[in-house]
């Protein structure tokens, strides 16, 4: 897998993830250099000529051993976040052994991918690296792996594949991240790999790993969050920092409701795509779906929906009209062969 990063002021182009691991061990952890990770893993060096990125490295914190990452997410301009590599590794929770074989399904230039890499460094585990981040390449490496970290969207795509091949994989740990894992996702994962420990993580590039849960239930116990608050709009704040995520408290558990920036404004009524997708995914026969905004001259925006599964659009619409307020029911429903994901493996909101 091609990969690139820029070290110090001179620049250094890394082409293999194994080389990146060597660099992390030899240069970054000991504090001999900083480096800037690119979110692009293809062989495209045009970004390096942009002075904005170069000056960002030059102006990096005085202490070495820093990694800068681009935030991922589905909307908005990416931001650059600095992380102390040594501290990240020290703060990483979870155990492991050298027999663990972690499959890399995330871009190593983003927090999710780097997190897996740093975990394998910390626990001396092995990293299974696909040829690239296409679905086919990732699928080809499943039988080599025992531990997998992936998005729920990628998992739904896997469910459409030959289940015999997946079931025979010796998966001992399945970690969901990057997107919210619904109860259905967690239940389906346990059905596919009954022996696996299923975990879901709430994390972001800015905050790192916030918390993880392995109790088989969606949402997170409130006790897992430190210094948290939810404002009147439902946005979660951690240590006073806005997460941009909308959450709801039910008894002693927090449930994710969507991203603030993803809200679709239907004639003044706000719709979070996640809520629509959760209801759609609950319909028998639906494998995966994606809700997104469509510009409309009458209402500003309406909800669009792409879905995969042998279900008639009219039947789905009738189902949704019973579960959602009418403004949240998609005005355009398309049956598709696959839904669009971003390079980070998340549902595209565009």
């Amino acid at each position, binding site marked *: 897998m091609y990969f690139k990063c820029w070290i110090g002021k001179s620049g250094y182009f890394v082409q293999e993830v194994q080389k990146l691991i060597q660099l992390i061990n030899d240069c970054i952890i000991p504090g001999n250099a900083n480096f800037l990770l690119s979110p692009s893993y293809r062989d495209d060096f045009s970004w390096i000529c942009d002075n904005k990125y170069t000056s960002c490295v030059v102006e990096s914190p005085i202490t070495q051993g820093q990694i800068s990452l681009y935030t991922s997410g589905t909307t908005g301009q990416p931001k650059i976040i600095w992380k102390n590599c040594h501290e990240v590794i020290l703060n990483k929770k979870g155990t492991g052994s050298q027999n663990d074989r972690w499959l890399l399904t995330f871009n190593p230039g983003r927090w999710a991918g780097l997190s897996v890499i740093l975990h394998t460094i910390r626990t001396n585990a092995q990293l299974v690296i696909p040829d690239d981040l296409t679905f086919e390449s990732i699928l080809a490496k499943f039988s080599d792996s025992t531990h997998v970290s992936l998005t729920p969207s990628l998992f739904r795509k896997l469910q459409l594949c030959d289940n015999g091949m997946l079931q025979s994989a010796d998966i001992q740990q399945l970690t969901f991240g990057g997107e919210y894992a619904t109860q259905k996702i967690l239940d389906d994962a346990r059905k596919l790999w009954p022996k696996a420990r299923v975990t879901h993580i709430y994390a972001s590039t800015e905050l790192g790993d916030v918390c993880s849960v392995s109790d088989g239930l969606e949402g997170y116990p409130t006790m897992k969050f430190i210094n948290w608050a939810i404002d009147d709009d439902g946005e979660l704040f951690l240590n006073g920092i806005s997460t941009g995520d909308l959450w709801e408290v039910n008894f002693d558990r927090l449930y994710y409701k969507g991203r603030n920036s993803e809200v679709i404004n*239907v*004639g003044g009524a706000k719709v979070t795509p996640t809520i629509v997708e959760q209801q759609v995914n609950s319909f028998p026969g639906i494998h995966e779906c994606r809700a997104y905004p*469509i*510009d*409309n*001259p*009458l*209402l500003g925006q*309406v909800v669009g929906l792409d879905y995969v599964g042998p279900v008639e659009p*009219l039947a789905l*619409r*009738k189902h949704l*009209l019973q579960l959602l307020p*009418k*403004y949240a*029911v998609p*005005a*355009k429903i398309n049956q598709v062969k696959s839904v669009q994901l971003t390079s980070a493996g998340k549902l595209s909101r565009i």
Partner: protein
Amino acid sequence: MKSFDEIVNHIKKNIAQVLLESLPIDKINNDDKLIADLGIDSLDYAMVMLSGEEFIGKKVKEEGVIWQEIQTVQQLAMLLYKQQGD
């Protein structure tokens, strides 16, 4: 380009779907007002519009459109028909 009659038929088919087939297509007249007579709401109207845009292969340009004058099946069909040529 779609003919005017094709667009009218497409709109009627969509209205029937929006109403979950509670109203047969042959009961929908060209001069029926979508909201006042057929009982669809603004959300349904937007859905019919969206489907119409897809049918003609163009998004409706709002400039010059007086929405208060787009009340009936025929008026909506004429809007979409004319927008094809723009």
